[in-house]
């Protein structure tokens, strides 16, 4: 895999959160849940860039991004890397659940091309970006009432919230072991997949996996079992 040139084309503000439009070759645009690594002159660490929305000349990257980036900032991009979301073909009712401070990394699953396949609902307490017209959004406190509705869960959660993840699903009528879903783990990934440094390590079933390489999207059951649920 080689590096590619990129550029910050524009900074967009939605509900107080800033996203950046990244101009780049089409072949490096990450899929939902995957990411690119981006560096610029003067950077000390690479920044992971996740897809928030499509764009004809590249993609809209979800926050956060370095405060030093401005429109015109030249980037070097590596990727896409990581395992993204892969929804089974038979999903009919998709619950998007964001437990962290952002929910934009889940929004590519709500694109118009996908919404024809399934109905979907977003549960999040984070500020809402511009949502597709057919995506309903509710606060996390309403999640319990909707557990019996969804047949698949796409979750975004910080690393330090994974241990308590099972609490939010413990009252599901079908029981925890029957839940189908995937979890996009939010973790600091300082070694850019190169060092096996372990900062992003997550317990999946009985094994330690690295969010940067083995994820960032993992099977929901693996995460629940790894957390002891």
């Amino acid at each position, binding site marked *: 895999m080689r590096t590619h040139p990129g550029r910050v084309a524009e900074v967009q503000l939605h509900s107080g959160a800033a996203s950046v439009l990244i101009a780049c070759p089409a072949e490096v645009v990450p899929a939902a849940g995957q990411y690119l690594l981006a*560096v610029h002159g003067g950077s000390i660490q690479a920044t992971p860039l996740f897809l928030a929305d499509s764009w004809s000349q590249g993609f809209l990257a979800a926050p956060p991004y370095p405060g030093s980036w401005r429109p015109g900032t030249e980037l070097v991009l590596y990727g896409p890397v990581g395992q993204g979301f892969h929804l089974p073909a038979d999903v009919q009712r998709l619950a998007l659940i964001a437990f962290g401070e952002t929910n934009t990394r889940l929004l590519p699953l709500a694109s118009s091309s996908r919404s024809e396949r399934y109905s979907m609902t977003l549960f999040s307490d984070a500020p809402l970006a511009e949502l597709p017209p057919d995506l309903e959004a509710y606060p996390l406190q309403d999640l319990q009432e909707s557990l019996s509705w969804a047949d698949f869960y796409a979750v975004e959660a910080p690393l330090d919230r994974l241990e308590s993840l099972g609490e939010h699903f413990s009252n599901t009528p079908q029981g925890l072991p029957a839940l189908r879903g995937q979890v996009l783990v939010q973790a600091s990934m300082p070694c*850019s997949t190169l060092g096996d440094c372990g900062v992003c390590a997550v317990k999946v079933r009985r094994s330690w996996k690295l969010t940067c390489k083995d994820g960032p999207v993992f099977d929901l059951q693996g995460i629940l079992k790894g957390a002891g649920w």
Partner: protein
Amino acid sequence: MTYELAIQKYDLDISPPLMNAAGSLGFAPEPGGPVDYSQLGAFITNPISLRSRAPAGARTCLPYPGGFVLHTGYPNPGLRSVIRRYASRWARAKLPIIVHLLVDSVDSVSRMVPRLEGLEGVMGIEIGLPPDSDPRMAFDLVQAAVGELPLIVRVPMERAGELTEALVESPLTAVSLAPPRGTLIDKHGGTVRGRLFGPAVFPLALANVQDVVETGVPVIAAGGVYEPWQAEALMEAGAIGVQLEAVFWNLGWQRSGE
């Protein structure tokens, strides 16, 4: 840049005298990624302990101006598992392999070193002294590590001069410099102590190279090197080689494809 000096006269054949630092590039070279291994004269593995180590519960990476603090706990599957998984890749690697061992006792060193002797592709051992090592402990650990393979001893940078003095008579090939340690406040108000990386470390590294050179023990420098001029400066200060670390994570140091 070109290096005319190779680490050949110290029982190590490392040409050019550049290598990655332990903990920067995993347990074996992985071709096909952004790292240009042709720029390196050797590959140093991630730190490996006798028994497996889980990631630290409070593992984190905290940035600060000029660098970042890293606390990981040095997770690794243990020496036996690492050899089982990676020995064949070490044998096929185009770079000579130096295996880095996490050592905390004479017993663990004595049990690990013999398992590496005779492995194809492994041309040396680097042992990482614990941060709280005293001169006597350092001497004993080094004595236990002496065997058939050339030995590099990674000393805590903050005490490089003091500990190297204690090893002057030891049959080691060289010392190298471990990342310095520091403390930051995390977002929850707690303190995080860990290894320091980033360009801000370079002045510390250069100063400590100068200290170690005075002992007469060969030193392989490391710390905050992001540009070729910094590696040159360390060599001009007397280092016989340079280890690169977090610059790789910034997709830097002559990325493949450029």
